[in-house]
């Protein structure tokens, strides 16, 4: 668990630092583009939160992808219940909706998986890892829901276990095998994250075709300038919408 978290954290930070340090000497944004930094911020926000470009491309892919990501973000937030003691009020308020969010996540992933298997164009570009990754992701909500429905997991024990992790004094975990599976899949994905296409999450913040502003006639990118066109918006790397 610790190893997975460490690999994930340092892997991602390393990659973000590399992206930030790699120069973007020329402007390659896709037009029409905003002319101001505020405009760029709004464009990026629409991309990150709403997946605007994907929507333009294919409504079905967008629907499943967005359902998947939104469901995942929601359940991640609800998982704060295991880390906060006493559970924050607003997290508590979200708990009843968690079932719906998990189901959305599963439906979204299933939709993407079906598309990958049955649309000839998408099948043609898929490597084994592309299917495998979706299967892993599918495993998360499936085990999560199974735990609720099939086992009588002691969730206060889970809270104790999670807080033990956070306080760096891990306690032995007790529980059903499905819980172990749930956590194991998450760990595997954390480890894979910095070395795979999951890098699209930090990567999209650094995509020059989206995060530059349309001011090339006014500035010279080869010289350090006050307006700093090549600067990236949202380099925090914390990926809220993903």
């Amino acid at each position, binding site marked *: 668990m610790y190893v997975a978290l460490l690999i994930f954290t340092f892997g991602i930070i390393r*990659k973000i630092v*590399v*992206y930030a340090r*790699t*120069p*973007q*000497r*020329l*402007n*390659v944004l*896709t*037009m*029409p*583009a*905003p*002319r101001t930094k505020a*405009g760029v911020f709004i464009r990026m926000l629409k*991309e990150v939160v709403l997946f605007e*470009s*994907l929507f*333009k*491309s*294919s409504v079905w*892919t967008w629907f499943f*992808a967005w359902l998947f990501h939104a469901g995942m973000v929601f359940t991640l937030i609800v998982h704060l219940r295991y880390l906060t003691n006493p559970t924050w009020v607003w997290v508590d308020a979200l708990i009843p909706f968690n079932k719906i969010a998990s189901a959305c996540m599963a439906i979204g992933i299933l939709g*993407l998986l079906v*598309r*990958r298997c049955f649309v*000839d*164009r*998408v099948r*043609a*570009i*898929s*490597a*084994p*890892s*592309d299917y*495998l990754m979706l299967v892993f992701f599918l495993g998360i909500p499936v085990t999560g829901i199974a735990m609720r429905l099939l086992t009588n997991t002691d969730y206060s024990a889970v809270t104790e276990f999670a807080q033990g992790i956070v306080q760096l004094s891990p306690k032995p975990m007790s529980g059903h095998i499905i819980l172990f599976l749930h956590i194991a899949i998450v760990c595997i994905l954390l480890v*894979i994250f910095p*070395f*795979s*296409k999951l*890098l*699209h999450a930090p*990567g*999209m913040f*650094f*995509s*020059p*075709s*989206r995060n530059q502003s*349309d001011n*090339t*006639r*006014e*500035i*010279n*990118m*080869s010289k350090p300038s006050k307006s700093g066109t090549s600067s990236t918006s949202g380099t925090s790397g914390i990926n809220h919408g993903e």
Partner: protein
Amino acid sequence: MANKPTFEMPDFGDLLEGGVVTTPKIKPSAMVHSEPYRASSDHQQALGFPGELIDDWHDVAIARLGELVKSNRGLQVYLDSCTKCGACTDKCHYFLGTGDPNNMPVARQELLRQVYRRHYTIAGKYFPKLVGAKDLTEDVLDEWYTYFHQCSQCRRCSVYCPFGIDTGEVSMAARDIMNTIGVGQKYTNEVVAKVHKIGNNLGLPEPALADTLEGLEEDVIEEIGVPVKFPLDVQGSEVLLITPSADFFAEPHVDGLIGYAKVFHQAGISWTLSSIASEAANFGLFIGSEDQMKKIAVRIREAAIQLGVKRIVFGECGHAWRVAYNYLNTLAGPFDFLDPKYPIPQHIVEVTHELMQQGRILLDASVNDDKRVTFHDSCNVARASGMGGVVSGQFSLPRALIKASCNHFHEMPKGTTGEATFCCGGGGGLLTDELVELRVKGALPRMQALKSVDDNHDITHMVTICAICKSQFTKVLPYYGFQHDQILSLHQLVGDALVFTEHS
């Protein structure tokens, strides 16, 4: 123009309704036979590239890939981020026209990405089969040459990619790597060498250019009785016009040049062409070489200084405007010797549009009442540059000029214009005769859109503002049952509608 295709023509498919283009079933290897002539050693060496495939090509190619990834953030992000979601798979005109799965943008990128994975990612080093990583073999190199020369770098895919991945950047990187190991493309590299040696893509030397321009002056005065000038190397002019060399004699380009000259004449703006920078095109972009792009761009600065002009204006050329708009200042700047009142550089459409708004020129649209026109947005203007200092000005300004010059204007279906425009099929250094099959098939989506607007409105002409589009359409229109002369320069329309009055 009798064109008997030696290949199977794609059919129009269902007519476009609401801009939905028919997506073909995939046909593996449908275009594997299509590749441009390779550059001879002379053409290679003229640009400082090895004359032929070097002995240690594999290692040099891998090292060059590493250098590019380290020095180009976009490329690195693009190679890492693709989730193969498939959003781009039905967006490329070459895929839509051929069905070859390697012409799906993601598959084209994968040709390079599989090698990047193998050498520069942990997953690809240890689990190549699992993640789709491949060594750079001679077969892979051949695939690179074939399919990175079936990309016109039009960037339509990047509009639809949720991460903005631009296949154009990937294909530029691949072409750069291939040039570095001695595998160059004849057409592009020959053209770049000609620009360095003679000053323009067509290899038109200064005396011939002067002659041509003189001929144009005679033609115009004969036709309309107005002494419109076509100045060359005139010191102290206000405007230096940089235009694609096709404008000097090819049809329909030259009518565009006549249009610019008429506008300058009527507005009383002194202008000149330059014999050392007698070319707007910058094929350095196509081969992904920043060095070449810079060398070509610097000529323009030198010409501007030498002639003592106050403004630089670009003629109708798509990729040239991309390079000018985005890179001229960065690669060849600063341009502090020019008049800061005007954007540097300006597009001729911006100049004419402003003159029209200020009332300094008058257009009489009824002159063009015999025409019913539509407008083809050129990819590099639409998706890689701007106009007028306003968002989407590259769409609204040309249309404003067309509407002021012609009473019958009709749009092609949605999803085929503006940022979603389809490439003409000849951009990105592919405008060469041996690629005619690719060019004809790649034009299919645009031809479907044209057919659709033509069926509804009986279109006589398609107007455009790019030299490559004009040449490409002149060639491919007849394959689809249109006439080769149905393509018009925007400034021909403007020039014809221009009302000449005595200068006060």
